[in-house]
């Protein structure tokens, strides 16, 4: 295809290889499926965000004056369910993971491309049911579905919500299954486990959790459904059922689920920090094994969500002990990222700003998790805004920022275009400020006694609540900015080359956007990961 005329001759890539709805809706190309997921989860992010804004609006004043109590219960329940199951859980694995895992290991696609497409359709079906649940009144159980409230006392669409999440869970399982088999069986020649980018280790660890944890959520929700529909009351106290049994089964998944949410983000950070420090990751083996450590230890801590629910204090001590232990591998990662940056040549690009923000905010969130792991402190702050602040520091300050970091870092590879760097940095700063303004006051609110899931509160808490709501509007603006300039860049963004960041990794060795089969020839890997010593000291595209 010799075109000597235009510089921007359009080579065949995965985007222009075929056109039309069918070529997208029936695609088995992991890159196209990643984009299908991108559009879907972005949609749900805004739905979840919309509920968040309503919550913050209600909490501007001490009285419950915007909505009724039952409606408020629905707002925070739907906010949680949508954000967790339809945004956070799929975000990095299904978008960035789907796009990059085959490329990073030098394969043409995932092991099971059709199952990949099926996972997206399951996500859409689950999402559709969730939307229908919302439109017909939602549920007010909290995202946690505790029994006997969810089984015996509510007239809301508990079963519908449970089914939608069950189906979305299946989508998650299939993604994890695909990644496990792909990483084990489809690495390019020379790509040993020790040469894999840490993003792969993180997604592998995530996949382990998806595969082993999600089925227990599935059975928990099934049992709630069976009790509501068929009188098969496994948790029914009238038959000697134990509501705590539900909580054990629910949290057996839902605690590791938070690691499903954060591990891929850590993987993103592990790629970005070395690139913009122009240095190899410090302690590669430790970071890799820490990912596995988090996945395994994460399954041993779930009852720290139940310390005040009535479990035996001896059991609580065991879970408290493991909860302290699980912080260790996370801390190892933070040390290693920091050590990577030490004496590196730092470039403050948008992805780097988000990654650095991640390290700080995740550390704060993680540290406050240790406070919660302490039985004595937990009695005081559980079910208060302290917990809300803790998990939002990790999920939003950590995970969402890592997701944005990854989207900015790999945007050139995915689309072939650069986003406008000035706007990128502005948005990152706006998000950082908005985030801290929204959630830091909530730590204080929590330890001074404001309970969570209440739509009214004593007047003395108003000032901090107003600050928090103000912060949330800044945060909302910050999230809107990338929507605008990413779309803008598709048409007007500068064309990115194969490797605008001068980054290490197989994905940067192919064109931007990549061809449908990723590589012209199967690569043979003879070098270690993060070979920044062999790459240019300068980042080609800056500013």
């Amino acid at each position, binding site marked *: 295809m010799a075109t000597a005329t235009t510089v921007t001759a359009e080579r065949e890539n995965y985007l222009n290889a075929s056109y039309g709805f069918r070529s997208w809706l029936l695609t088995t190309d992991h890159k196209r499926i990643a984009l299908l997921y991108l559009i879907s989860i972005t949609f749900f992010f805004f739905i979840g965000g919309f509920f968040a804004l309503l919550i913050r609006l209600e909490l501007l004043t001490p009285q419950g004056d915007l909505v009724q109590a039952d409606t408020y219960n629905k707002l925070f329940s739907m906010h949680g369910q949508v954000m967790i199951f339809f945004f956070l859980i799929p975000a990095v694995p299904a978008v960035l993971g789907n796009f990059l895992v085959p490329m990073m290991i030098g394969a043409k696609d995932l092991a099971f491309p059709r199952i990949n497409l099926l996972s997206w359709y399951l996500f859409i079906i689950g999402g559709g049911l969730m939307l229908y649940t919302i439109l017909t009144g939602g549920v007010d159980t909290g995202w946690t579905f505790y029994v006997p409230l969810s089984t015996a006392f509510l007239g809301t669409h508990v079963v519908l919500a449970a089914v939608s999440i069950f189906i979305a869970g299946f989508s998650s399982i299939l993604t994890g299954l695909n990644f*496990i088999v792909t990483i*084990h*069986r489809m690495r390019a020649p020379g790509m040993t486990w020790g040469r894999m980018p840490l993003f792969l280790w993180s997604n592998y660890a995530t996949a*382990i959790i998806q595969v*082993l944890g999600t089925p*227990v959520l599935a059975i928990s929700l099934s049992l709630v459904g069976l009790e509501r529909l068929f009188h098969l009351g496994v948790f029914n106290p009238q038959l000697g059922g134990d509501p*705590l049994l539900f909580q*054990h089964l629910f949290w*057996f998944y839902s605690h590791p689920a938070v690691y499903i949410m954060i591990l891929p983000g850590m993987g993103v950070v592990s790629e970005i920090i070395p690139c913009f420090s122009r240095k190899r990751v410090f302690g590669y083996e430790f970071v890799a094994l820490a990912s596995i450590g988090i996945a395994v230890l994460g*399954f*041993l801590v*779930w*009852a720290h969500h139940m310390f005040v629910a009535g*479990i*035996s*204090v*001896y*059991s609580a001590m*065991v*879970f408290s002990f493991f909860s302290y232990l699980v912080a260790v591998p996370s801390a190892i990662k933070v040390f290693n990222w920091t050590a990577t940056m030490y004496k590196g040549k730092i470039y403050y690009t948008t992805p780097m700003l988000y990654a650095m923000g991640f390290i700080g905010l995740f550390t704060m969130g993680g540290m406050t998790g240790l406070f919660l792991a302490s039985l004595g402190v937990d009695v005081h702050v559980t079910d208060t805004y302290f917990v809300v602040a803790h998990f939002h520091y990790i999920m939003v300050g950590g995970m969402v920022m890592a997701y944005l970091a990854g989207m900015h870092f790999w945007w050139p590879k995915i689309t072939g275009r650069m986003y406008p760097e000035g706007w990128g940095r502005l948005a990152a700063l706006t998000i950082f400020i908005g985030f801290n303004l929204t959630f830091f006051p909530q730590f204080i609110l929590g330890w001074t006694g404001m309970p969570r899931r209440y739509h009214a509160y004593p007047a003395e808490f108003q000032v901090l609540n107003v600050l928090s709501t103000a912060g949330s509007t800044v945060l909302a603006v910050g999230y809107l900015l990338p929507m605008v300039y990413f779309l803008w860049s598709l048409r007007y963004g500068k064309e990115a080359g194969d490797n605008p960041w001068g980054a290490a990794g197989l994905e940067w060795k192919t064109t931007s956007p990549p061809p449908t089969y990723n590589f012209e020839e199967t690569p043979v890997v003879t070098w270690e990961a993060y070979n920044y010593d062999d790459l240019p000291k300068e980042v080609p595209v800056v500013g």
Partner: protein
Amino acid sequence: MEHIVSAKIYFTVWAVLMCLTVTTAAVSYLDLGAFSIVVALIIATLKGSLVVLFFMHAKYINVKATLLVILAGFFWLIILLLMTMTDYITRAWS
């Protein structure tokens, strides 16, 4: 390349499984007290192991990762059962 298990092995396993089934049914009529469940689970695990090793070819898998997958599955089930029972068993201690 692909290991083919002989019909003879399959029939032998089948016969052992049938015998173990008769055994576990018969043993349930004995008064073993707290050991009843232990014996029943041991026999069930023997049966299960035969199914996994021979019918499901686990004995002949040469991909280590697949063996790791199988072990992980059972190990995680044990985590669920054991860790949850720490609550139920120790509730009476308080």
